């Protein structure tokens, strides 16, 4: 059991105290932490978070851009398609119009030719008529003259010129036409 304490006895080392206050440690920890905070704030977290943000923005931007480009491409494609269709339609229309025009032109030409032919025919007919008329009247006066001469010769006596002529004319009038 306990021996009488001796004045020069060795002392039992104390059990460590886990909650021991230590101002020095607090001071050092604070200094170290503040130093780390400052260094990292300035040289690490700042650049890193900036870089991350920049990258995120870039990714975001490029995705938007890609989407926009896709949209644009789609639009352009649609436009091209539309243009092509329009061009085709136009070509078809032009072709049709040309064909119609040609048809019309031909028709007109035909019409004109026909009309000309008709006119020519009519003119010819009129000419013929007129010539015939002329020829007839000439023939008539010739016949009258001949008849008068013949009658004079036959009768031997000069009849009154005018009376004779009227007689002949009446005679000729009595003749069937043509």
């Amino acid at each position, binding site marked *: 059991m*306990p*021996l*009488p*304490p*001796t*004045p*020069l*006895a*060795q*002392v*039992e*080392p*104390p*059990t*460590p*105290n*886990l*909650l*021991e*206050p*230590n*101002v*020095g*440690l*607090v*001071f*050092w*920890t*604070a200094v*170290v*932490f503040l*130093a*780390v*905070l400052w*260094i*990292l*704030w300035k*040289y*690490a*977290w*700042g*650049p*890193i*978070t*900036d*870089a*991350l943000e*920049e*990258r995120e923005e*870039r990714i975001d931007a490029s995705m938007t851009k890609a989407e926009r480009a896709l949209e644009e491409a789609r639009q352009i494609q649609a436009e091209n398609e539309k243009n092509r269709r329009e061009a085709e339609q136009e070509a078809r229309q032009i072709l049709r119009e040309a064909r119609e025009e040609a048809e019309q032109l031909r028709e007109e030409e035909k019409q004109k030719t026909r009309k000309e032919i008709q006119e020519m025919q009519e003119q010819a007919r009129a000419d013929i008529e007129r010539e015939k008329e002329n020829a007839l009247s000439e023939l008539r006066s010739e016949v009258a003259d001949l008849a008068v001469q013949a009658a004079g010769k036959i009768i031997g006596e000069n009849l009154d010129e005018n009376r004779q002529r009227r007689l002949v004319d009446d005679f000729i009038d009595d003749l069937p036409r043509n």
Partner: protein
Amino acid sequence: MAAAVPVLEPAPAVAQETHGSEAQAHGQPDQTHGGQQQGGHGNDGGEGGHSEEENTGNPGAVSHSADGTYLNFEPLGIVELPRLFLTSPEDGGIGFDAFASTKAALKSDAYTLAHPDSAGASLTHAQVQEALADPHHDYLYFTAQKAGAGSILIDFSITRHLVAVFVTALLLIILALGVARKYKRGVGREEAPRGTWQNMVEVMIVFMRDEVAKPGLGRHYKSYLPYILTVFFFILIGNLLGLLPWGITATSNIMVTGTLAFFTFLITQFSGTKEYWQHTLNPPGVPLFVKPFLVPAEIIGLFTKPLALAFRLFGNMLSGHIVLISMLGLIFIFTAQFGTGVGVGSIFVSVPLTIFMYVLKLAVSFIQAYIFAILSALFIGLAIEEHEAEHHEEEATGPQPHDDIDDFMDRSEHFGPKDEPMLGGDGETKPTGQTTLSQTAG
């Protein structure tokens, strides 16, 4: 690994028959001096029998986790750390003493030792010499004291936990600056991040930013993000350091965790808005007779939040280490109690359990760093976002007491970019908030 040695020692103490065995537990060759210790403790009243009982527990585990002015590389040896003292000499003024080691300080005869329980009564010269001669560096466990007149104002000595803080800081700076250099060079800025290291760090940074800072701090998150990141990585590296062989866990020291929590406290109070102070000191919408009860509670609440931060981290890291060592120590205790056979048999239980605990501690290292960071963010967010949040509340349900943690956990979801709801906030933030809530309450 180093723990195995101190753990081995208490085994005889389990028998607890004589004081000699207790002395032996601390490696003291002279058994007759055990009585002196008993007498010395008797002076402290309740402390008397206490130390005996304590030694039946596991002083190895405790001293392994405790701070000290040495680095324990047992069995390779012990490295003493420099002692720096801010003193108040007898002729007044302020003095500063620096020694390469405790031994040097004692040998200079300017300093002596005292038992921390003895209320400043220093050891005799012979006792100090004996402690110096001790092969187990007993003198390292005593409190240093100025010999003769004068006293130590502040002990600025480099302790092992401080060394861990230094190493943590150094590792963090190397890690962060290394990664930052990559970003500056354009990797990760103009192209995809490359390499395990950068990707790992980036994942954590982005997680901290999107899941901790943004939901907790809202629109002003940018000015607080560096602090949140630093505190997270500092604690994380500090926690992980303790898992290495001979590693020291700085975060298992209440002074270190307290300092970190103190910064959160300072930032919270200094960035507090007018509304925050108004709600703390003169809560609106509260009946007048309630105020005398509510306001003191609010003021106490200002301090309990960071205090809880400090103790949570400290307790988690400390308990993990003590459990780890105790589990390994079981092998030696069983050997001493039941013989070698049982001891060897217990290896097959103890070692898998220890490995399991180790993995658990690995997880806890991350979780605790995360919890510290997210709670810091929430506390600061609570102080800076009061105004807006209150308006939302008033529109919805009328004024509510703002110290309700549940309430602000919910509110944290409404933070973030002003008009668009936080992405992932619904899924992620709330469960986390509830976990931390239960921890805060407990």
